[in-house]
């Protein structure tokens, strides 16, 4: 059972940071609704935990997009030397080489690489407002509604990036680099 360094980093970006961020949204939306809209009274400790949770989500979103743009994306868009026939090590070129897969790059990657950044920007604003306003947030209707909308915007942006990321890696996996041997497998047949 082996994988390459590029596999591992891509998995960490998508299935580690990205998937964890998507999972975290349910807690964030429920928490924001409970404390800011439904008006449930939270203890200071619970509120502090919610602040840490939202800051961690914003940090996770930043780590996800930075890892995607500066670690995985350069491998994805690497150019093959002239005359290369086997494009499996060049995901972008592999997708663009056939009309049946070019849309995954032209629409999927082109949209994902930009819209993904909406998530850290909006989540940073959500965390800031939640901390800045504290228990007063429930009284500022316009602000609290906007905070919910920002959290939902971040979720949609993350989901779009996540879905296209998964599909892109299915049709043209980002592979390469050193091989990491996880365990030796049995020989069959």
């Amino acid at each position, binding site marked *: 059972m082996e994988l390459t360094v590029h596999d591992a980093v891509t998995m960490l970006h998508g299935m580690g940071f990205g998937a964890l961020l998507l999972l975290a949204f349910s807690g964030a939306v429920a928490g924001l609704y409970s404390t800011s809209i439904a008006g449930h009274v939270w203890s200071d400790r619970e509120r502090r935990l919610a602040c840490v949770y939202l800051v961690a989500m914003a940090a996770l979103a930043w780590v996800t*997009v930075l890892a995607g*743009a*500066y670690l995985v*994306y*350069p491998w994805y*868009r690497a150019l093959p030397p002239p005359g290369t026939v086997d494009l499996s090590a060049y995901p972008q070129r592999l997708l663009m080489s056939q009309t049946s897969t070019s849309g995954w790059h*032209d*629409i999927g990657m*082109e*949209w994902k*690489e*930009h*819209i993904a*950044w*909406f998530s850290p*920007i*909006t989540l*940073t*604003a959500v965390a*800031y*407002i939640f901390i*800045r*306003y504290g228990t*007063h947030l429930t*009284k*500022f*209707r*316009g*602000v609290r*509604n*906007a*905070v919910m*909308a*920002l959290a939902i*915007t971040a979720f949609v942006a993350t989901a779009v990036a996540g879905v296209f990321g998964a599909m892109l890696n299915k049709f043209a996996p980002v592979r390469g680099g050193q091989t990491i041997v996880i365990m030796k497998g049995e020989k069959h047949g």
Partner: protein
Amino acid sequence: MADAEDLPITNGPGAAAILAAAGGCFALGLLALAGDASAPLAQALNVWKPTGPLSGVTDVAILIWLALWVGLNRLWRRRTVSMSRVNLAAILLFVGGVLLTFPPFMDLLQGK
């Protein structure tokens, strides 16, 4: 329920954060379109070669977002602003940002 004016804090800082986030996302969409439409601009946005123009698009958008946030926060720190106007502007900027990053819409604007 109207925004409470008797509270020790105003809605200004929250409004600044909301509008700046929307402005930053719109700027990102605008820069993405500009980089796609103009080769010289794409070259100028190529801040870090391995990532290509995306590096400049996101770096500049983040700078615009932060500058907007600092500027609006200074303006509105102690003020109560109309949240309906701020939220409407934010919605328009977000929708614009989403459309500008959506490749078929980008192509439509460029007549491709």
